């Protein structure tokens, strides 16, 4: 227990801060922040597995997050039957063509020795395949996108329960990580960072621009939810009774019946949004706790020791007969799958899929800051990092605004500097995060909660 003292202290402070937000701003905002903190925590667990356990630098977090989000659309949205009728065949044919290209390229690579001719034939197969794909896909895509373009214009999903998509998101992200890992894991650390960053960018641009897949930048809204809807809650008997019971002391102060009814209505509306968010919090908390237990067990298992050995000294581990390439690939897949899961969770929470919003700043670099600030190699640290950084990211603007108002309070309202500063308050979050990262890197490079190695 003594070992965990600072962990408990750090988490208590964090929860206290969120409660403060609940008191000063509103409980709904506090719960939104908490939910996003939990999602960020899942992402940081994924990134921490790669960076903290194995020392792999993966700047492609954005790509896996987007893929997880895509999974939600592909799984939970009802299929658009008409789109399948007009263009489904072309799309299926395209999938077969892609499979064929991969097999032909593999065949050429395996069968022939390394030579210029082999390179050229691989290139020509790929180029020819792309042209064939374009020719096959074009009429199908056009037909699909013209099916009621304002509402659908895409193939839709499978119409399955949304929670199922979390698993699919993890699987999708994991299989993508397998491909990327095969390509890029041999690179040196900073090359790997750049390569993964750019590959993630390619993935997002595909999701953005292939409208037949998930409507691209036109967004998919109104996704299914694993929690009840506010509207349904507001009309259901038991919920109104529950709210009335909770607030009975407040309500009893109001005398007139119509005022009482109005106050109750307002309370029910507020409470319904809080209730829905609480449902999400419960779900997310379950995921975080399960992941935490699993990763914690893994970290102190023989496998975890092996990973740390590989991280700290690749050559020595290799000399001991550990297969470094295989282990790196495995951990790359595991970490990415967890990030994909987080991406699916986030889209489920939002209820909408907006490919245009996937930007490396928010989905790669901020997550990395979380891992480094929280503590690399320590799961409790990584989760805490997710909480702290997300909290700062959201609350930096209001705090900056408050401070600006405080320091410029003796300046007149129309002072140019003051107006300019107040307008740019939202951008102070970048400053806070950046300076925070630089300070942590300099003075506490292991993060807030450093890695702890338990010696048996």
């Amino acid at each position: 227990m003594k070992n965990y003292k600072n962990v408990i202290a750090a988490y208590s402070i964090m929860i206290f801060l969120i409660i403060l937000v609940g008191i000063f701003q509103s409980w709904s905002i506090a719960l939104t922040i908490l939910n996003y903190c939990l999602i960020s925590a899942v992402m940081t667990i994924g990134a921490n597995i790669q960076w903290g356990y194995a020392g792999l630098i993966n700047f492609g977090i954005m790509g896996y997050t987007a893929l997880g989000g895509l999974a939600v659309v592909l799984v939970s949205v009802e299929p658009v039957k008409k789109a399948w009728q007009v263009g489904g065949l072309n799309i299926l044919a395209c999938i077969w063509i892609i499979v064929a290209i991969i097999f032909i390229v593999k065949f050429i690579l395996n069968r022939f020795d390394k030579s210029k001719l082999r390179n050229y034939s691989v290139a020509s197969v790929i180029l020819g395949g792309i042209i064939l794909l374009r020719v096959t896909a074009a009429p199908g895509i056009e037909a699909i996108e013209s099916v009621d373009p304002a509402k659908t214009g895409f193939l839709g999903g499978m119409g399955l329960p949304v929670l199922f998509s979390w698993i699919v998101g993890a699987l999708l992200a994991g299989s993508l990580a397998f491909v990327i890992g095969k390509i890029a894991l041999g690179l040196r650390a900073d090359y790997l960072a750049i390569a993964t960053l750019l590959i993630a960018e390619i993935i997002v641009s595909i999701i953005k621009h292939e409208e037949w897949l998930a409507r691209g930048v036109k967004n998919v809204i109104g996704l299914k939810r694993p929690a009840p809807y506010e509207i349904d809650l507001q009309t259901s008997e038991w919920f109104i009774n529950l709210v009335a019971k909770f607030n009975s002391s407040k309500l009893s102060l109001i005398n007139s019946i119509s005022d009482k009814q109005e106050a109750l209505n307002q309370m029910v509306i507020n409470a319904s949004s809080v209730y829905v968010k609480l449902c999400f919090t419960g779900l997310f908390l379950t995921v975080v706790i399960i992941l935490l237990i699993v990763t914690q067990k893994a970290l102190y298992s023989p496998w975890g020791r092996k990973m740390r050995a590989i991280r700290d000294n690749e050559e020595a581990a290799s000399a001991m007969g550990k297969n470094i390439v295989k282990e790196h690939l495995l951990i790359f897949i595991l970490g990415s799958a967890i990030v994909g899961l987080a991406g699916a969770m986030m889209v489920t929470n939002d209820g909408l899929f907006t490919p245009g919003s996937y930007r490396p700043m928010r989905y790669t670099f901020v997550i990395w800051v979380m891992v480094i600030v929280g503590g690399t190699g320590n799961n409790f640290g990584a989760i805490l990092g997710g909480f702290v950084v997300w909290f700062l990211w959201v609350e930096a603007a209001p705090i900056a605004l408050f401070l600006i108002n405080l320091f410029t309070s003796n300046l007149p309202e129309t002072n140019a500097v003051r107006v300019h500063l107040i307008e740019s308050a939202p951008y102070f979050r970048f400053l806070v995060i950046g300076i925070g990262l630089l300070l942590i890197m300099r003075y506490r490079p292991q993060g807030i909660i450093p890695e702890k190695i338990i010696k048996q």
Partner: protein
Amino acid sequence: MDFLNAIIVLFNFTVIPALAYGSQLALGAIFVTLIYAVLRFANFATGDMMSFGTMFAVILTYYFQSLGIGLGVLPTALLTIPFAILMMILYMLIIDKFVFSYYRIKKSPPVQFAMVSVGVMFVTQALIRIIIGPSDRRFLDGEKFIIKATEFKEITGLTEGITLKSTQAITIIVTLIVVSIMFWFLNRTKTGTSMRAYSDNEDLALLSGIDPKRVVLITWVIAGILATIGGVLYGLDKSYRPFVYFNNMLPIFAAAIVGGIGNPFGAFLGGYVIAFAEIFVTYAYKRFISYLLPEHLEPDSLLQLLSTDYKFAVSFSILVVVLLIRPSGIFKGKVI
């Protein structure tokens, strides 16, 4: 005649824009490569540093315009570049003093440097947005075109015209001047040679009495010049928007790696490789082909290999292919 028209279509819509865009990328890529060669890390703050320098040029341009100082037909921004460069170098040296130098002395691994540069990226981005705001700004003044399509058609009597924007010409000319001076400096002067020596083998360079502080200082000075000029030229040609500059970091990285990271000449050519690939792959060849083929064979489709949405994806795919086949880049940079 048709053949000539076809060539002019291709020239107007691919070669000229690609040359201009390539020059802008090349300057950025040399910046990345220099930092990588001498200071030994991948600088993730590249795009934002370019943006930072450009910001001063934009502010000064507005200031000069309000004073009535201008260059006539040339954009005022050219006049402000020296001042912007000074501010940029100052900022870079401050950052180096308070951030990077600590890790350099500690001989931290490149990954740690990269993470630190992410921190610098956040701070720089915040400063830019706080000082000038995130909105889109055009600061081009003076003559807009050197050759207009209509004039060209009148003179030559062809059905297709060439448009040459003054910014494109300025970009290409300025890039050539800056890059040639830089290569002269790196290859012919004693300081340049000491920089290359330091980059090749730090210990040997130290042994032969090269002052590392001086090398680092000169590197940041050159980096500041390249970053600011590259940024201003891009801003003049398109427009100045901080977010776009951050995104430009990605093709710039691709250019630097494709050319062989750590090799300035490779980075220079890499910029053009990326630019030409992006534009040639996403260009619709319909008009070009329709001039070459007899009328009844005219194609129906746009004859586009990939839609322009995938412009960035093209350059990144090239990078991935290069990393796979020839990780040291086309022109043999540092080995991985």
